[in-house]
């Protein structure tokens, strides 16, 4: 017998769609100067956030985002069944170290910058599967911790190519629940890892675009829907050039998406902020989703949104050894209620 809640090859649907009862977003100072600033719960004035190191600052960011989400939902830690969290640092230490301060069972996730969407998909499965009543999904990234791990020390003089993206400093947390009021998650399409042979870590949009396009195509095939079913199609952090490529690939697959398609990495910064191709990092799609998108659903400006969290699954070691960059995209369908 086929799995009862799976449709097609990669899509699952939720019989009782989990409700996003609360979401919180905290961003760094630069993101706070961007066009979405009014949607964030908190904007830091300093990237150290009062801590000694950026790593500690990132932990505090994630912890504060989780606490803010709990506070908004008027819930305690004991009311939450699981935390699903992830980040960009080696061994996802931000999530692990943050979770040690919470008395909530913890599942660590790694999907690079797609982690929020991976977490929302799995969290929804846990709830609709009857394994949990409430699940917290949280992710974080920090420009300075990511930069020193993946690229160069922050004070090193490096010229960035036009395709380079800027890792968003911030954290997003979403509380999914079986019951409550708020936007719901109706479907999730789990992506395949796609490697089209792009190997430039300064051009991750090009590495991730095929994965995003593949997942979207799969979603439409599995559900029988077409792009005009959605008010908004939004990818995680492809940036300006990755977005062009993803759009091109979707067109090749026969899906015309142009006016309803955008990218979180493009929305979060304005053109004058010298971030080249746009934002990236776990927090990029997370703060845009938890801050901006959910707000649009609540106000019914958009009724149906499909978000595709995108991740570049590379490590500095794999790049130095000449490997190409595998990409992934996970799609989650949000509906206003």
């Amino acid at each position: 017998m086929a799995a009862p809640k799976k449709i097609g090859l990669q899509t699952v649907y939720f019989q009782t769609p989990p409700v996003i009862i609360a979401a919180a977003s905290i961003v760094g100072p630069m993101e706070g100067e961007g066009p979405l600033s009014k949607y964030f719960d908190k904007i830091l004035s300093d990237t150290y956030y009062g801590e000694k190191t950026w790593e500690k600052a990132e932990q505090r960011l994630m912890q504060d985002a989780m606490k803010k989400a709990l506070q908004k939902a008027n819930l305690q830690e004991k009311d939450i069944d699981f935390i699903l969290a992830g980040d960009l640092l080696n061994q996802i230490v931000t999530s692990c170290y943050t979770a040690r301060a919470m008395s909530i069972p913890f599942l660590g996730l790694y999907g690079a910058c797609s982690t929020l969407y991976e977490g929302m998909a799995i969290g929804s499965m846990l709830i609709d599967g009857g394994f949990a009543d409430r699940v917290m999904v949280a992710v974080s990234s920090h420009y300075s911790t990511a930069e020193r791990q993946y690229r160069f020390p922050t004070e090193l003089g490096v010229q960035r190519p036009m395709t380079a993206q800027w890792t968003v400093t911030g954290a997003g947390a979403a509380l999914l629940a079986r019951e409550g009021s708020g936007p719901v998650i109706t479907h999730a399409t789990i992506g395949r890892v796609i490697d089209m042979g792009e190997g430039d870590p300064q051009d991750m949009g090009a590495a991730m675009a095929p994965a995003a396009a593949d997942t979207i195509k799969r979603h439409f095939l599995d559900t029988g829907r077409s792009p005009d079913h959605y008010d908004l199609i939004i990818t995680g952090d492809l940036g300006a050039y990755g977005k062009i490529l993803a759009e091109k690939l979707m067109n090749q697959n026969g899906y015309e998406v142009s006016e309803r398609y955008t990218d979180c990495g493009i929305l979060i910064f304005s053109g004058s902020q010298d971030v080249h191709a746009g934002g990236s990092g776990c927090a990029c799609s997370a703060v845009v989703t938890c801050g901006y998108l959910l707000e649009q659903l609540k106000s019914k400006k958009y009724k149906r949104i499909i978000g595709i969290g995108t991740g570049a699954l590379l490590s500095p070691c794999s790049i130095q050894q000449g490997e190409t960059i595998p990409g992934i995209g996970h799609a989650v369908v949000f509906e206003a209620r």
Partner: protein
Amino acid sequence: MEFLWAFIIGGALCVIGQLMMDLTGYKFTGAHVLVTFVCAGAVISALGLYQPLVNLAGAGATVPLSGFGHLLAQGAINGVNQKGLLGAFSGGVSSAAVGITAAVVFGYLAALIFKPRG
């Protein structure tokens, strides 16, 4: 006049470095550029072609990192002249000792004093 040449030659050497990065789509990083400049400077110096550039442009030829390679190569050659084979081992580094030590010491002290700003 030497000041003008210092500006022009120094600037031109930097343009070569810039082209290395831009024309390889930034696969050539700053570290690659620095290594290439040191090695190229040393080889050109050994062929006797770097000293004329230094005579013409002064700091315009010694300040870019190819000048560091020139210093290392001339040090090794002078070392061989003075001490024979052992000079090949001692000459290079001793001629560049001021630069190396200054960078290590100042770098160490800066790490103790300053905090990166991100």
